[in-house]
């Protein structure tokens, strides 16, 4: 059992006092930012990227992983008590969770969400533990052509398939790839897209783009279109310890959600929206209390989607760690953290950095236990954070945005770039463009270009290499179908309907 031996080593590293401390800081910060509406793990990890110059890689990734998992837990508290979900994956939790809270069952809803997150997070992490090596073994057969095609597939699914509009998703992706290409081309030394600005020759830091899009953009949007006045935070009236009946109704949805969320999250498409919606739909069908759905709130409708959400978060780490393929904005930013340590993410990561990867995975198990404690007995603390008035919250966010940007370069140009990204983030929000493809395109674009060039060097400039290798062809065909599929279906259906 090679995997278990590796995992044991990982635990030995993760259980050192200093790394336990990083994990605790991570899950605490993660829960807090998950609770605060409008803040997410991608933004927070981006703001903490400069730590990579100061802290060793293992500690930094334990911190980031804690933030990543913590934000998932915190987000459910907000969607149950506030009904203004920060990210789309928690919308489903708010459907039933908020109704439960309104009918005096907030405690049970918070409890099933937290325990469900723990169960799913643990199952997901076990999945990650045992899936990573097989995926790597499979990926070792990949050449540059297969990698390029896999990245194309990933691009297409994160931007065109999962959003509200393929057109707007692909536009966001293309803008991201453009941003990632700015600066000196590493292979030829040519400056690209610098527009004659010296500061752009070093490229744009992903921190600036992420913080601009997520923090400044959100602040501008809420200033322009937000509703003023204090938000209504629902009160937790009942016990946060579930009754026997609640347990009986929750455990199956937890398991179903976990087994739905993990594999979907682990696919190159990623995303938590699909599994959470599927889980909600499934629980509604299976429930013996259908009358509670949409009225007083059904506990199954919180337990299932919450589990699916957390399990898919663990699933996203499979392609990230095993293939170097990020399928969410947060994973993309973590990938850029690997790069700033000079570590090449990809199938060789498990071989070259076993200590790092396995201590990261071990810290996920530990973090999950910490999060259960932080989110159940201490839930009152997070409810207080929810009550931070909006003016102070957004003013504070921009102070941190300044630290993250100006604090790494002391360059006013970077601040102006941050504001430019903020205006872009505002427009994207206003005109319904997804923002995650920008970050993914920015990180994955240059990697895709690198694989493309390698493949072309191997084939001596022959483009057909992407179509003559069976695996590469398969991936490209799936990608093409994913984009064209909905249009083709429309074409087929139209004559029949007419």
């Amino acid at each position, binding site marked *: 059992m090679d995997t278990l031996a590796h995992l044991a080593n990982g635990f030995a590293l993760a259980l050192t006092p200093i790394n336990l401390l990083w994990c605790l800081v991570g899950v605490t910060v993660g829960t807090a930012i998950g609770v605060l509406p409008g803040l997410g793990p991608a933004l927070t990890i981006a703001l903490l990227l*400069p*730590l990579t110059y*100061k802290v060793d890689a293992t500690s930094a990734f334990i911190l980031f992983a804690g933030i990543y998992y913590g934000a998932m837990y915190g987000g459910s508290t907000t969607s149950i008590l506030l009904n203004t979900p920060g990210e789309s994956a928690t919308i489903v939790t708010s459907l039933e969770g908020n109704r439960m809270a309104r009918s005096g069952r907030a405690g049970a809803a918070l409890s099933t969400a937290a325990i469900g997150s723990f169960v799913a997070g643990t199952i997901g992490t076990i999945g990650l533990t045992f899936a990573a090596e097989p995926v790597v073994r499979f990926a070792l057969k990949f050449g540059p052509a297969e990698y390029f095609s896999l990245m194309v597939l990933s691009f297409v699914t994160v931007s065109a398939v999962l959003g509200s*509009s393929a*057109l*707007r998703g*692909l*536009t966001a992706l*293309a*803008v991201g*790839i*453009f941003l990632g*290409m700015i600066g000196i*081309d590493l*292979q*030829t030394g*040519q*400056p*690209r*897209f*610098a*527009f004659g600005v010296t500061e752009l020759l070093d490229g744009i830091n992903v921190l600036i783009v992420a913080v601009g899009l997520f923090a*400044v953009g959100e*602040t*501008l949007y809420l*200033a*322009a*279109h*937000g509703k*003023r006045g204090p938000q209504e935070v629902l009160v937790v009236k009942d016990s946060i310890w579930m009754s026997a009946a609640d347990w009986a109704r929750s455990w199956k949805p937890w398991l179903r959600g976990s087994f739905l969320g993990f594999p979907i999250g682990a696919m190159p498409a990623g995303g938590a929206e699909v599994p959470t919606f599927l889980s909600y739909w499934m629980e509604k069908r299976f429930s013996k209390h259908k009358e509670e759905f949409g009225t007083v709130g059904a506990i199954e409708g919180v337990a299932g989607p919450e589990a699916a959400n957390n399990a898919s978060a663990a699933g996203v780490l499979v392609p990230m760690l095993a293939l170097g393929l990020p399928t969410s904005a947060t994973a993309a930013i973590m990938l850029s953290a690997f790069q700033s340590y000079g570590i090449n993410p990809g199938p060789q990561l498990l071989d070259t950095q076993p200590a790092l990867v396995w201590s990261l995975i071990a810290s996920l198990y530990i973090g999950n236990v910490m999060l259960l404690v932080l989110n159940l007995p201490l839930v009152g603390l997070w409810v207080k954070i929810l009550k931070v008035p909006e*003016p*102070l919250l*957004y*003013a*504070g966010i*921009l*102070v*941190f945005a*300044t*630290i993250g940007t*100006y*604090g*790494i370069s*002391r360059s*006013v140009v970077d*601040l*102006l770039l941050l*504001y430019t990204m*903020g205006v872009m983030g505002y*427009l994207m929000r*206003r*005109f*319904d463009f997804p923002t995650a493809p920008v970050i993914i395109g920015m990180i994955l*674009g240059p990697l895709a*270009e690198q694989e493309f*060039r390698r493949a*072309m*060097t191997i084939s*001596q*400039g022959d483009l057909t290499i992407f179509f003559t290798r069976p695996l590469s062809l398969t991936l490209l065909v799936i990608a093409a179908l994913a984009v064209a599929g909905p249009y083709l279906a429309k074409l087929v259906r139209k004559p029949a309907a007419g």
Partner: protein
Amino acid sequence: MPDGAGQDRQGNRGDLAIGAGIILLSLALAWQASVIPGSASYAQVGADVFPWIVSAMLFMLGIFLTLAALRGGWSHEIEDAPESTDWRSLGWVALGLIINAAAIEYIGFILVSTVMFALIARGFGSTQPIRDAAIGFALALVSYVGFDRVLGYKIGSGLIESLI
């Protein structure tokens, strides 16, 4: 409904501007791609290939977005789309950001953050500027010490910074 029609037209205009903006961006990228020298070697993909691909992609997407805007646009279909823009709020926030960028080099992070904090809080409807400034100052001070002195960020010097 004349009201709805008016809104549609306005939504349309915004969508049209976005489509046109993307086309303009793609042209700017094509111009930048054209100044990158290509590769001399036949088997090597030059530095200009991907820039050309991205600008072509954006050009096509811009055309499609413009067409979508001309066919009625998409932004009126967005759920809870904003009905109006609060220019006063936006103005306070923008003022805070501009002052931050303009003065941070001269008076330092802590003081300028205090001003920005109060202005943004004002934009979000707070009516207690003195209290906001005090909170902003405390937050800036604590995070300066935490990030600059402990975590090793380099936030630079300033009037208050030189005192601690």
